[in-house]
Every structure is written in C-alpha cells, then in structure tokens.
C-alpha cells in the first residue's frame, strides 16, 4: 500500500474521529454549563471540571478537523498530534487518579480487595474510550518521519 493511500485513510479516519471528539466536547460543555450529568451504558459525563474537559475535547476535535486539508503537511500533522496529546492529558490524569484512589481504604490504611477492584469498574469518562483511537496518530508520526528520512537519502 502506497503512502498516499495510507494518508488518505488517515485523513478519513481523523475526520470521523474529529467529529466524534468535537461532538462529545460540545455535549460535555452543555452538560457542564447546565450542571447536569449524563450516563449511557458504561460511559458517563459527570464529575469535577466537566466543563473544562468538554472545552478541551472540543478544541481537540477542532484541531483534528482543521487538519484534514493538506493532511500530509507537517503543520497539519502537528495539529493532529496536539489534538491527541490533549486527549492523552485528560485520559492520563484520569487513569493516574484512578490508580491512586484505589490504594488507600475508607477507614484502614489500605483498601479492601473488593474496594480496589470497585474503583476500576465502569462507567468511564469519554476520554478513556477515545484514548485507544487517538493512538493511531503514533503510526502517522512514524510514517511521516520515515518519509522525510527517505526523501533525504535520495538527495
């Protein structure tokens, strides 16, 4: 498969993904502004700083969508990277705090085993679901790196 095809796929992928991220962002902003929360299966939109998380996802989605024009350009790829980094920040600190919250107990020093498992159970915030899909950008960073290196050798 040629690189052009790969980038075409990436473009479509991030266009769709960007729309999803943007949509979730808008939803979270609305919920945050009205002070409500929303739960859907194993996904929840609630908790502290909901408005801020929504805002960040909104921008991340906007970064993705603005990058689909001239997708192969390094500036555009940088936007995709930063959009993904923003999702990683939200998801990363969430995972970090889940781990830390699971260790100490309510009364005793350490949590009970049930309590420990309990803290990892659903529902999760949207960013945790978005995280694996945003990792695709790593592939494109590598691809772009290889291409520029390949171009250099032909000199």
């Amino acid at each position, binding site marked *: 498969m040629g690189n052009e095809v790969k980038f075409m796929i990436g473009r479509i992928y991030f266009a769709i993904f960007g729309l999803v991220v943007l949509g979730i962002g808008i939803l979270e902003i609305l919920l945050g502004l009205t002070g409500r929360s929303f739960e859907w299966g194993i996904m929840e939109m609630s908790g502290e700083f909901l408005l801020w998380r929504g805002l*960040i996802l909104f921008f*991340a989605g906007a970064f993705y969508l603005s990058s689909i024009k001239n997708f192969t350009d*390094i500036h555009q790829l940088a*936007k995709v990277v*930063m959009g993904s980094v923003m999702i990683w920040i939200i998801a990363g*600190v*969430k995972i970090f*705090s889940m781990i830390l919250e699971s260790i*100490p107990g309510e009364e005793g020093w350490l949590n009970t085993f049930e309590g420990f498992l309990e803290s990892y159970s659903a529902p999760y915030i949207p960013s945790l679901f978005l995280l694996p899909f945003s990792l695709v950008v790593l592939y494109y*960073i590598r691809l772009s790196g290889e291409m520029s290196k390949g171009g250099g050798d032909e000199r």
Partner: protein
Amino acid sequence: MKLTVDERWDLIDKITKQVVKYGEYKYTLKDAIAELTVKPLTGIPIAIAVLYGFWAFFGAFAGFFTDGFFVKLFDNHWLPWLQGVFPGKGGWLYYIFVGDPKADNCFEAFGVLTSGLFVAIGVVLPAIIAFYLFLIILEDSGYLPRLAVLIDTVLHKIGLHGFAVVPMILSLGCNVPAVVATRTLETKKQRFMMATLLAIFIPCGAQLGIMLEVIPEYVGLVMIYLLAGFFIFGFILNKLIPGRSPEILLDIPPYQMPIARNVRRKLWARVKSFFTVAVPFVLLGVVIVNIMYLTGFLDWLANLLEPILCGWFGVPKETVGPLIAAFLRKDLAVAQLSAIEMTTYQLVTSVVLVSLYFPCVATFAMLIKEGREEGLKGVLQYLFGSLLALITVVFLWGGLVHLIWIILGVA
C-alpha cells in the same frame, strides 16, 4: 588590537562562511508543534489542556497522600496519642504544643505538634512535591518559556506591555528566586515594578498548593482576583513610576525530553529547602500565634482591628490570627483560615487578603537585598515604595473585593 563592532561581525561572517555548512533545513514535527504552542489560536487551547492536566494531577497526587494517609495518621493515631501522653493538660505549654484538648482533628487543634506538623508535613509537603514535579517537567521540556511567550502575546493584544512574564511564572514556584530573576530586566523601573508586583500578587507554590488542598473550589476565584489586581496595579504603577520599560525579548529554548537526573535533583533541592526553611517558620508561626492568644494580645488586636476587618474588608475579626501567621508563612495562614467558620465570600476575601497584605519573610528579605544592590537609597526606595504600594493595594483591592460582594448581594 581591538576590533570595532562592525569589524567583529564582519570577521564572524568570514569565519562562519568557512566552517559552517547548513544542510537542507528540514522542518520537523517538533518545529511545527513548537509553533502551534505559541500561536494564540492553537496555543490557548493547549495551555488550557496543560493547566487542566496540572490541576487534575495535583489533586490526585496530593489527595492520595493527604486524605489517603496523612489525615488518618495524624487524626486517628498521632493526635489521640499526643493528647494522652503530653503532660499538664490545660496548661499553657499544653496549649502551645498540643492545642485544644477537645479537638478531634489536627486541623482545628492549633497546637505546634498537631496543626503545625500536620499542615507542614501532611498537607503542604505532598502539595509542593506534586506542584514542583509538574512545574520542573514543564520547565525542562521547554513548555514553560513558550507559555510565557503566549501570555506575553496575549497581553500585548490587550494593550499591556513590558510585563516580564518569565519572573511571573517563576514566581508561581517561589517568590524569592522570582525576585532575584528580575535582575535580568533592563531598567530600574522595571525591576522595582516587577519585584513589587510579584511579591504582592502572585501566590507561591506552597500557598497555591494548600489552597488547592483545602479550598479547591475557590482557587479559581482567588486567582482571578489576584491576577486582575496584578494587571490593574501593574498598569497604574507603569504610569506612575518614572522611567522606561522597554520590550522584553525572550529566547525560546528548544523542546527536549526532561532528564530524570535533573528533575530529581531540582525536586530534591526544593524539598530540602522546604524542610530547612519552611517547616521551622510554620512551627514558629504557630508558636507566636498561640502565645499571642494565651496572653490575650490576639483578642485585643482583633477588637482593635475589628472596624477595619469587618467594616472595610468584611471578614470576621478572628482572621487576625492567620493574618499574623501570614507574615511568616502564607501556607500556614491559609490552613488556619480554612478552620475558621465563615461564609464562602468571607473565605475568598480573607485568602486574597492573606496573599496580598505582606510578602512572606523570605521574600521581604530578598526585596530589601535587591534594593541594597542599588545602595542605601535603593533600600529605602524598595522598602518604602513596596510598602506604600502594598498598603494602597491591600486597602483598595481588599475593599473592592468586599464591594463586589456587596453589589452581588452576597456579603
């Protein structure tokens, strides 16, 4: 032989032409990202995400240690044990060291070995570790200077020029090095202005840390008041003080991976100085406030200042104790404030007041030292200038905050 400036540049031109070969300049992803982080349109969203990460990381980290372990250790084990074994219950020595014999948590006991130790070790220590860890990583990665440039750009857009953003951001760590960093500013006016503004308005890491810990829901509000004050009074000072404030040019370093060794070393230096410099002051602060309370001086002072505190600032007169502790350590003062019963708005106002009304001892000493670099006249100028600015600011801004509450109908 000495060359003239032009000859020197000419020579450099000759040399570099012979020794430097520029390869094809490749615009890398790093460059593109660097550009995105300083352009306001894309930089501000990124800055929001980074600050959110900071905030959430901090909450998780400090919460883990303080609520998860230290609160249990101090309230369930240390306090009952100490209350049992410390001799002379009800005596003044007992009061100073253990505090209120009926207290069931270390926040409200007010003793040196209870509240003092708990605030220093249990609350502020985890807070500053979390705070500095994140700050150092941001600093070493090269993001912080970019944030400075971003803020500078935005400030220029709204017509605020000549603010030294680097010392301002450094100041979030600790006001002392930030005051020292004003040395890189070109004119005396700028140095004085920035040193004073920093010392008054920008809270330090320890204070921010404890605010995030005990009153997390109001930190945003407190920061808005402080930053608004910073820029408004900065604008006024800029007009009042004679002299020039030239533009500040900032070199942006490249993005790079923070090196674990360097991060570890810097974090350790911070923690060490916390133990040697901050902890003794926290304990001393508790001792002084307790002695003042025992001798009745505190009550006398509270009654004396009541018209000002209640009338002008709209905060309860009990805040006099924390205000005295704030001379030594702001973090201690915030902790003590949070144990006093008052409304949300009084709490926000009093925290703003504590931040404003006097720089901590260490910063104050550094201000004087900076003034001394410019001779005795310099010392007096720094001292009186800062104090004058300080008193004006405290009264105007503190009163204004109160007025805003009154207008909003909540005070």
